[in-house]
């Protein structure tokens, strides 16, 4: 519902102009990165053609795949995001079901603990997490990375699914039980099909956050075969003169999966974004 009443054509035009301005603001840096990634090394610094696409080619992408281990980084990032999302979903689904449809002591404390763990920032966690994983001999291992990623995936998934399961009526569980489902059967046969959109939201968010994660990778990983995509891309900055072309090509490669997920599943993404602040 609008604030402006009975918009005049001029006001309507104004609304569109402002929205388009926002769109340009949002898209321009991305356009600039894509454009840079498609320029040859000679053209990257040629300012006269800086905004206009001319002599575009894919040489930077070829460079990235030939001279850097980007295929390996993508592989590590993908497997890491899939594995950590999978475990977070299992923990979240079981805990969400348990906390909302069973009665036992301490479940309210757990509900608060989930929110607290969601709010605890990485900035507080990254040093002690490194020290703990170091004691366990898990620094510079894939398992250590998975553990680190669960620190944000599990709280988010659990909280989101807990919030959703809470909205499902208890009668659903009761009738399922009376019809002869086991407690686990109620979850898999009745509740999960209903919760599928929320599970999708949780999965998208956990996957995206894992895919984008950099700080834990930077603190935990030293060997090149375990580098994630963000860690690998950050490595472009180490050299004395930056190769902006290949670097931006690698950046575009990191953006593409997120863009595809977003375009295909925008509804779930929006739902997940607003759940923290608006729900309840």
């Amino acid at each position, binding site marked *: 519902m609008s604030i402006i009443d009975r918009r005049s054509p001029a006001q309507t035009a104004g609304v569109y102009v402002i929205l388009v301005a926002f769109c340009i603001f949002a898209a321009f*840096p991305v356009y600039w990165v894509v454009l840079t990634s498609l320029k040859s090394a000679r053209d990257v610094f040629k300012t006269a053609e800086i905004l206009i696409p001319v002599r575009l080619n894919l040489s930077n992408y070829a460079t990235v795949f030939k001279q850097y281990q980007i295929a390996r980084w993508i592989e590590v990032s993908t497997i890491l995001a899939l594995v950590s999302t999978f475990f977070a979903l299992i923990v979240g689904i*079981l805990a969400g079901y348990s906390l909302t449809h*069973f*009665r036992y002591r301490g479940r309210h404390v757990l509900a608060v603990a989930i929110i607290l763990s969601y*709010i605890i920032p*990485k*900035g507080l966690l990254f040093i002690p997490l490194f020290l703990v994983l170091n004691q366990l001999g898990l620094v510079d291992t894939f398992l250590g990375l998975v553990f680190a990623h669960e620190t944000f995936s599990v709280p988010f998934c659990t909280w989101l699914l807990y919030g959703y399961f809470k909205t499902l009526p208890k009668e659903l569980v009761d009738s399922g039980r009376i019809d002869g489902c086991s407690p686990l059967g109620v979850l898999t046969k009745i509740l999960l099909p209903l919760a599928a959109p929320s599970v999708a939201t949780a999965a998208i968010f956990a996957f995206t956050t894992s895919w984008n994660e950099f700080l834990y990778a930077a603190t935990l990983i030293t060997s090149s075969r375990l580098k994630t995509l963000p860690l690998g891309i950050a490595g472009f900055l180490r050299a004395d003169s930056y190769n902006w072309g290949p670097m931006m090509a690698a950046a575009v490669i990191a953006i593409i999966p997120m863009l595809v997920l977003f375009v295909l599943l925008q509804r779930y993404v929006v739902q997940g974004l*607003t759940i923290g602040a608006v729900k*309840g």
Partner: protein
Amino acid sequence: MPRRVRSDTPLLRSIHFEQSTFGVFLVIPLIVVLPGLLLYPMISSVLVSLQAKVIGSPGRYVGLGNYVELLTKDRVFLEVFVNTVIYAVASVVFKLILGFAAAIFLNERVRGQNVFRGWILLPWIIPTLVVGLMFRWMFDQTGGVLNFLILKMGLMKIPPAWLAENWLAKGAVIFANVWRGFPFFMITILAGLQSISPELYEAAAMDGARGGQRMRFITIPAVRSVILVVIILSIIWTFNDFELLWVMTGGGPSYSTHIFVTYAYQLSFEGSRFGYASAVSLITTPLLVIFILLLLPRLMRDEE
């Protein structure tokens, strides 16, 4: 295995008992994860902050020594503290203004609302690390697009080295943070706006309330709670915005874009002073506790 239940029989109680046990069983993974990956590290962080700790050797207990050094001797810490406040406050203010404005205009009846909304969300889906690289390149002195435009329009003869000067660098990182973060404000505030019942506006219009009055008496009160939650979450995230700063400026020039989290990283992973670095990151805890106390009742509102 089918079971018939009558509500007043002991059988019901036994089912509930069985269910509760099963419920506890289901929550075990969470009970393992939360203390193991969050509580234990947090406690050990406090303990480490009381030590002079280097990797590979057991820490030496120094009591509050790290905190005393931090607050009395460390000049850099003072600068980092001021930077963190400037960075967080300025970023959040601009994100709120832009996000609120975008939400208001998106909430107007427009064609292609979903396209506009999705488009404006674009910055939010770019990996933060990439955002940092992106703006590092845009603000680049010789090849960056910003200086190209400045030269082209003849605004300056010699355009500035944005990321090499104290206040320019501060402004640049704030700009990048705002660009990346305002869509979150936009989308949550928009969701808040959309939950306002149209009848409220119609009734107000009938009573002769103008646009400005409707904004003040209906819109703002309705989204105030949402905005508060978004602001607090955003402050917490901005305080911990390691990725963006680390790749964009590395905290430089000198220490002018270092905030707590980058400083703690530098002290620990580059300087190997883990105890001292833990103290640096824990110093923000009282503030975090205040934020959590403000947030909890709002996030738990639908609890019994």
